[in-house]
């Protein structure tokens, strides 16, 4: 059964090759060939297939080139030994770590605020106002969803 399948696939390929072979020729040439075709159909067909095969190589080669070019741009890790599950797990870990959990984030915010206070003190020892203004605004935001619950 697979043999039959292969054979029909092969025929389809040959018809396709004949198709692009015909495109590769000048139209007049094809017409010439067609007039001869009445005498020897299979010969013309074979010729077209041959021509098509050459073109196919060119086409595949070209698309391979384009393919490689794109692969280059995307990074060329697609290939053997590419373990999707591993990559997914890795990125998942990276994303979650990058986001940090809320406690971590708050620690960092606290640290930043402390540093900001220092900077503000250095800049304008008398003006504590900007610091005071910023603080209640930040605290008001997380309160809202908490109240809703």
């Amino acid at each position, binding site marked *: 059964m697979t043999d039959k399948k292969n054979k029909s696939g092969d025929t389809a390929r040959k018809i396709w090759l004949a198709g692009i072979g015909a495109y590769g020729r000048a139209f007049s040439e094809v017409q010439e060939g067609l007039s001869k075709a009445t005498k020897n159909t299979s010969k013309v067909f074979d010729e077209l297939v041959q021509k098509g095969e050459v073109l196919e190589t060119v086409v595949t080669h070209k*698309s391979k080139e*384009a*393919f490689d*070019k*794109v*692969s280059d*741009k*995307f*990074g060329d*890790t*697609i290939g053997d030994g*590419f373990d*999707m599950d591993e*990559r*997914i797990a890795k*990125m*998942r870990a*990276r*994303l*979650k770590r*990058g*986001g*940090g*959990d*809320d*406690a971590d984030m708050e620690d960092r915010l606290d640290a930043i605020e402390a540093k900001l206070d220092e900077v503000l003190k250095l800049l304008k020892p008398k003006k504590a106002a900007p610091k005071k203004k910023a603080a209640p605004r930040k605290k008001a935001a997380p309160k809202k969803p908490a109240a*809703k*619950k």
Partner: protein
Amino acid sequence: MTERSKTKEKILRTALALLNNEGEVNITAVDIAAVMEISPGNLYYHYKGKDVIIVELFADFESELRQVLAAPVNKPMALEDNWIYLYIIFEEINDFRFFFLNLTSLLERIPELKPKFTRLLSLMQKTFERLLSGLEASGHLNFRTDEKQILSERLTAHFTYWLPYANLRGLKGSPKTIIHEGVYTALTQITPHWGNQSEPYAALLKDFLDEQVG
């Protein structure tokens, strides 16, 4: 995150599994208690009903998805990174699928979730737009006026409705397969914007899908 007792945590895990696997409409608070082998009264002590549990589960989902969406994706990622990134977003959605499979009726029944969910969608759209902008800035993608914004909205809609749609279409396969198909469909929408490289890009995508789905 808010501190939770071990029992509360266990209630939430059990509820999520039940809701996801049996469908939201088929599960009551009593069912959750029964599976946990605690009395409904005990459950009620911790959570006053199924919808309160769902609101709490939503808060978890929201914080998880926000983390993923807020990740720095401004530098153009490699194709497989884009694929994996979208895959992880879908994974989050899949972990909370009972919600997406019954979106309309749940949002009607628990209106307090609606503004939260709307904000989440808006964040998702912004993330997609940023991703597309990154690829545009590096000269990979071309967009005419408004196209980028429209595409990011379309991607957001795709992510929101992919699971119920796959369900309705009777898509067969493991959750993994369905997610990979969803990622493929999402990335395919970008194909026309690759200009003269759209053909090899499409071939590459298809290759990638075949490799994942087998």
